[in-house]
């Protein structure tokens, strides 16, 4: 397990923009992408969401993804394509590369409309409408469009799905199974998840404010991000450029409740601890934490306690970027992995937005974009089912 795993490219689409440059620009300008929905057809027209600002037709045009029905697959294809171009992988390398995709609801955006039609006895083409329902479908579509022939994997562990694809990708490389992995995730907004989180009463209808005393809940978002992971040898051999090292990763289970986090953040603490063990780093080396920070009362409290337990009095600058993008569920881990790599590349701390009265457990989060010396970034992603994952990215 001595092999090192590097990030050699990434692609991202979120409410902040359709590519890495646009996302970076918005982060640097502190402009949130969250607004009232304009593409999602829902009764909750006033509910703030982090929507990608393109229709499916426009996304099809932008990607050349003709014939892709699901927005989840379209967004995933878009980000994976950008990642491959960014890493400048050749067709030969692509042939053997593995693709790991994380998604929480897959093709639900198409299913929910077709299912409504079916219940109302409106004639529909079942094969066409429901073929993309399962999570593995988007993975298959992305692989086919890009021409991948290697190992395909799909992980669905709710909101930590794509953090887990990165972890799995790193382990695939370390085990020698493959030397190049395209790992990330994608999730489109759907009325299924919007109504689900609404029923759980953890949505803020206004702009979410993670780590604020008066936080009311999360804003849902959508998007996709993929990162190209490579072994040191693979990058050297092809003359690629390492952007960061995926130095550590950990996954643990809170084993407390199906949806809520344990008050003390036990699972989160264990995941962070494991990431440090794998990276061979100590907590004091971390210069920035990109927290899960959804903006719900439960998550931010529990995560703060896990951070406090890990770092004691030396909590490094931390923030949640979910007030920029919304909570993009299965895509969140990969989107925030890209933001973590960008923090290393640009030596910048990204802020938590909308804070008026910060929580007092671990000091205030970063409130403005700030230049800082950043060598190691910790990124957290937690999900339903007690699923807790942490990744550590290091500068190169």
């Amino acid at each position, binding site marked *: 397990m001595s092999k090192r795993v590097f990030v050699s490219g990434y692609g991202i689409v979120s409410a902040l923009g359709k590519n890495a440059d646009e996302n970076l620009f918005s982060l640097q300008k502190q402009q949130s992408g969250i607004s009232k929905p304009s593409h999602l057809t829902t009764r909750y027209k006033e509910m703030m969401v982090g929507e990608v600002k393109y229709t499916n037709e426009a996304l099809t045009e932008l990607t050349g993804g003709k014939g892709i029905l699901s927005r989840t697959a379209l967004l995933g294809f878009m980000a994976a394509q950008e990642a491959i171009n960014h890493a400048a992988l050749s067709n030969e390398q692509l042939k053997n590369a593995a693709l790991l995709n994380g998604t929480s609801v897959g093709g639900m955006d198409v299913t929910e409309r077709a*299912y409504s039609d079916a219940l109302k006895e409106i004639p529909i083409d079942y094969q066409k409408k429901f073929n993309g329902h399962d999570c593995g479908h988007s993975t298959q579509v992305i692989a086919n469009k890009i021409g991948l022939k290697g190992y395909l994997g799909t992980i669905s562990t709710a909101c930590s799905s794509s953090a887990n694809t990165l972890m799995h990708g790193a382990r695939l490389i370390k085990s020698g199974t493959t030397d190049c992995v395209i790992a990330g995730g994608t999730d489109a907004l759907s009325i299924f998840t919007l109504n*689900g989180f609404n029923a759980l009463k953890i949505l803020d209808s206004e702009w979410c404010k993670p780590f604020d005393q008066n936080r009311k809940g999360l804003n849902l978002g959508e998007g996709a991000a993929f990162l190209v992971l490579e072994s040191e040898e693979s990058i050297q051999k092809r003359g690629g450029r390492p952007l960061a090292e995926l130095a550590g990763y950990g996954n643990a289970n809170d084993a407390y409740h199906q949806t809520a986090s344990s008050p003390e953040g036990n699972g989160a603490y264990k995941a962070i601890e494991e990431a440090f063990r794998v990276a061979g780093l100590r907590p004091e080396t971390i210069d920035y934490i990109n927290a899960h920070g959804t903006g719900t009362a439960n998550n931010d409290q529990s995560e703060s306690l896990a951070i406090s337990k890990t770092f004691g009095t030396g909590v490094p600058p931390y923030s949640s970027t979910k007030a920029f993008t919304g909570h993009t569920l299965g895509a969140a881990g990969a989107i925030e992995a890209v933001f973590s790599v960008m923090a290393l590349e640009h030596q910048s701390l990204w802020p938590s937005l909308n804070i008026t009265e910060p929580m007092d457990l671990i000091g205030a989060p970063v409130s403005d974009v700030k230049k800082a010396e950043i060598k190691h970034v910790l990124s957290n992603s937690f999900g*339903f089912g007690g699923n807790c994952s942490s990744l550590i990215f290091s500068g190169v």
Partner: protein
Amino acid sequence: MKIFIKSTSAITPQETFNKDAYLKEWVSHEGAYLKAVQPKYRDILDPKLARRMSKIIKMGVAAAKSALIEANVEIPEAIIVGTGLGCIDDTQKFLKNIVDSDEGVLSPTAFIQSTHNTIAGQIALTLKCPNYNFTYTNRGHSFENALMDACMHINEGKNHVLLGASEEATDTSFEFMYKMGCVGDLTKADGPTFGEGASFFVLSNSTADKKPFIKDVQLSNNVSQEEQAEELQQFLSRNSLGVEDIDVLLTGRIDHTDKPHFYDKIEEAFQNTPKVAFKKVSGEHFTASGYAVHLAAMMLERQDYFNKNIISGNLEKPLKHVLIYNNYKGINHSLMLLSI
């Protein structure tokens, strides 16, 4: 590679959960699809918890617990589950609530339990297991993804890994799968028979008793039948085995399958080898191959084929190598080799 199967438990449309009665009496099915024989859950699950669990969760947790008890393992070092459609019953319930109420005031229960990782999550919750917990949902390779990860964990040095697959069939999911042309109606015999079930395993890097082990796994996607036949030859040769060394072929062939030529091509190479049609037990579903691994392990451990309904050809004992070949719609192909 030697990944030992310390124990295994399966719930299927035949009697498999009770190992004393394993496939002894053939259960006939009258409906449009194969429903799993449900065990007496109160013997293995807390009735209070079981009442709130959907069928896929109950089958998953019960098979998982049963495998852990048999292996005498309380807390596995990892829990890894594969499921193709996940908690489809709760998904459908919540969707219907949304449509019926036109996005009205909803109870979150079905939504909470619709998440794919509810199975692995509930196992962790039941065991109070804080360790690694992953769920794979990758069409015809959902179980295989989980299996590859589990093997990697054992190779990384973990000792006890809980691996499994769970899939539920409901009247609604059958209706949709049928209208999509994915499965047939058993009463009309117009396509592959839809089924359901759960198979769980405790994997280990070592074992005191003689236990079956997973020797190799090879997955491929979008290949031609010639390429798949080539994969088979490479697979056998990298394991220093010839066709004649395979004592039995477990084939995913099922009546009215829509891509029979892939099975024709593979079975052609094994003309004189006895073949077991494992989907006669499990039916067709995304993680039917999980049951194939369970059955292969059972056959190797018991040196038996259990029921003449599933086998063709003459099985000669002792059984040493069992090969599984399965494909999903001619897209996701799996070769899995188990030995003892």
